[in-house]
């Protein structure tokens, strides 16, 4: 009954628990400031979700997801920046009506590639398509030539470094190292006040669940199984007549688009975009989120992202000068002790106990029905 093309029963319970956690528990227990922080963390969850498909299932380790996060974020930020740079808001500049950083860099007219970003429709399409096409180009160039594994990871790092240098260097067009700051409104709707933050949070959670569903669908489809087969024994899949490169390109593109959606959400929720999310370090951090959560688990990656970012914030608030050591210790502990991350802990220790509990309940049929177990209701 509950087994379908998206999830089996235990996955359904997991998704429902996550939904309750994100939609009910967090908004009720956190103030708007903390909720906005969760919204920021969740933008990375999109990236982690993409990495589960691309790295966990497809076995393609990308150390350059920041590139796609950044591309999506910059597309969104360009739209928001243009709206914030109306002639009225910028009359203090030598050239009113263009973003402030252009004015500082003695640019006197809006560059041609900025112009389409006046349209929200174009921007939304660009958020998905620009990173998607870029990932397709990289993927085609690499996978068709059978470049994989470590070499691929190194090349994605190089791309991340190149894009950072490009953004920082072309500051007249991109805002340089400062990034794009002071984003204010979306189609006239102020994104800064508290009530807007709450709306954006729920919108983001909605998008996240759509992405989770897509990820679940990929996982349960034949495609997902081919990805796993490829990861385990690539040659055998190739000899069976599948075009390995195309599947890899597909997984990489999906991961890129997820990351880009995360980036766009970041620009909306934080009101900010800068090259510090594009480079090598943030890209590796994003892989760490996935590793901590468990790279084989869609939900694990999301919890991992939340946990790491929460630890980051609270450690740095409590120990402003020592927090990096605490965070480093956490990573080392997880990688050494639990190679499959949080999901591994759950799968190895918690899940078997629950299963045994359920099995023992099932063996004594008096008073207990399947449905009460399926709802995940605790006994008594």
């Amino acid at each position, binding site marked *: 009954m509950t087994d379908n093309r998206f999830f089996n029963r235990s996955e359904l319970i997991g998704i429902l628990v996550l939904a309750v956690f994100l939609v009910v528990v967090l908004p009720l227990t956190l103030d708007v400031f903390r909720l906005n922080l969760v919204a920021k963390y969740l933008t990375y969850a999109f990236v982690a979700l993409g990495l589960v498909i691309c790295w966990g299932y497809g076995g393609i380790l990308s150390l350059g997801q920041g590139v796609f996060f950044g591309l999506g974020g910059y597309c969104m930020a360009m739209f928001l920046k243009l709206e914030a740079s109306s002639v009225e808001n910028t009359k203090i500049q030598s050239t009113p009506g263009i973003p402030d950083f252009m004015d500082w860099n003695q640019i006197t007219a809006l560059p041609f590639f900025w112009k389409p970003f006046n349209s929200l429709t174009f921007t939304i399409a660009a958020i998905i398509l620009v990173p998607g096409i870029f990932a397709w180009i990289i993927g085609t160039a690499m996978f068709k030539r059978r470049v994989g594994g470590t070499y691929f990871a190194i090349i994605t790092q190089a791309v991340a470094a190149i894009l950072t240098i490009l953004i920082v260097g072309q500051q007249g067009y991109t805002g*340089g190292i400062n*990034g794009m*700051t*002071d984003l*204010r409104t979306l189609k006239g709707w102020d994104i800064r006040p508290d009530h807007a933050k709450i709306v954006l949070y729920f919108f983001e959670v909605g998008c996240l669940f759509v992405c989770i569903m897509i990820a679940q669908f990929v996982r349960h489809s034949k495609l997902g199984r081919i990805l796993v087969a490829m990861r385990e024994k690539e040659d055998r899949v190739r000899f069976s007549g599948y075009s390995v490169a195309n599947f890899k390109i597909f997984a990489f593109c999906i991961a890129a688009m997820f990351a880009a959606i995360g980036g766009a959400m970041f620009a909306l929720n934080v009101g*900010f975009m800068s090259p510090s999310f594009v480079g090598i370090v943030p890209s590796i951090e994003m892989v760490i989120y996935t590793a901590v959560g468990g790279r084989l688990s869609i939900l694990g990656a999301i919890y991992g992202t939340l946990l790491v970012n929460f630890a980051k914030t609270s450690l740095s608030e409590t120990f402003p*000068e020592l927090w*990096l050591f605490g965070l480093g210790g956490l990573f080392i502990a997880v990688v050494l002790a639990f190679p499959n991350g949080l999901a591994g802990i759950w799968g190895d220790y918690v899940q078997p106990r629950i299963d045994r509990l359920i099995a023992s309940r099932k063996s004594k049929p008096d008073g207990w029905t399947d449905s009460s177990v399926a709802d995940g209701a605790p006994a008594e």
Partner: protein
Amino acid sequence: MSDEANKGLLSPLRRKLLMGMAAVPAITMLPPASFAQAPATSAVNTTGLAVTDTEVTVGILHSATGTMAISETGSIEAEKLAIEQINAMGGVLGRKIKFIQEDGASDWPTFAEKAKKLLVNDKVAAIMGCWTSASRKAVLPVMEQYNGMLYYPTFYEGLEQSKNVIYTGQEATQQILAGLNWIAKEKGAKTFFFIGSDYIWPRTSNKIARKHVENVLKGKVVGEEYYALGSTQFNSVINKIKLTKPDVIFTDVVGGSNVAFYKQLKAAGIDLAKQPLLTISVTEDEIDGIGGENIAGAYACMKYFQSLDNPNNKAFVPAFKKAWGEKTVIGDVTQAAYLGPWLWKLTVEKAGSFDVDKIAAASPGVEFKGAPEGYVRIHENHHLWSKTRVGRAKLDGQFELIYETADLVEPDPFPKGYQ
């Protein structure tokens, strides 16, 4: 009966102890009593800031980790010292200053996040913080949205003015123009070569410097080159300098790049004793890394040098070294950071309130006579009136004061004719 008997049994020691215990509540009541003249919290805090009858909380927001930590540590130390000294003098409006320190981690969005946390969660009355322009640009919308008060210490490019920020460093014209005038007059300089790091501050500073050289000094800029942040290869520009033989090399290279730049300059045989070089980006802090022998003879244009000879500075330098170690050096920005808590205290006392709106309104005209750099005053535009000074780097890493403007220089963040 038995009560009577027990009384007689009280030993003198026990009696003393009891008396001592009786005194405990009296002692704990002392601090509020000594602040009896402090105004009521409801009167000085109408906007729900973290102000109690005995304490007021402010935030310190700098990078304690990451690439900027080396520069920002001095600012953190200066702000903590100022707060400690203010508390030793009785605090602000009878309240001790308590600070919450947050780490911006050299990451601009983190700065924004922490600023928001300080304002929204901790309700701090003011924030002393930020260093790079990028971090300030990230924090500024937060300050304006949640109506906070930021004391920003770094010299910067100008083109900004906010109700919610007091700029305790100098803006570009304050830093550059007097220095250029001096070197043009003193060295008869007509040709200038500009070298900067490639970001907003050097670009804007050089734009202003170029206009001044061309329009006011009637000189010529013979070269203008930019290098990416962190760049360490300056050989090609050094060759160009040798070819163009400018009267003055004018630099705003920042951070670690300076180490490579001055070493390569020296290795290429350019003797700074003969080739005038004017920098607006090297303070005592940077010389610590560059090495005095590599930069001796260069001129720096700042508002403060550790070697300044005035009574305020003679008290400040030993106090700073006592608090943070004999080997620490004090650069221009560190001194400007030290001004932040003091200016805030003086403004609060002038306004008679911690409310941000009242502080913003009361700030213009606030003067601090105890500043290590000498006298400073807050302008209507929330920048400081301060003097411009030129120093020559010595072998021991200190600057020797060569020139200072006779009067305070007016801050002009949107200079007409320079944009």
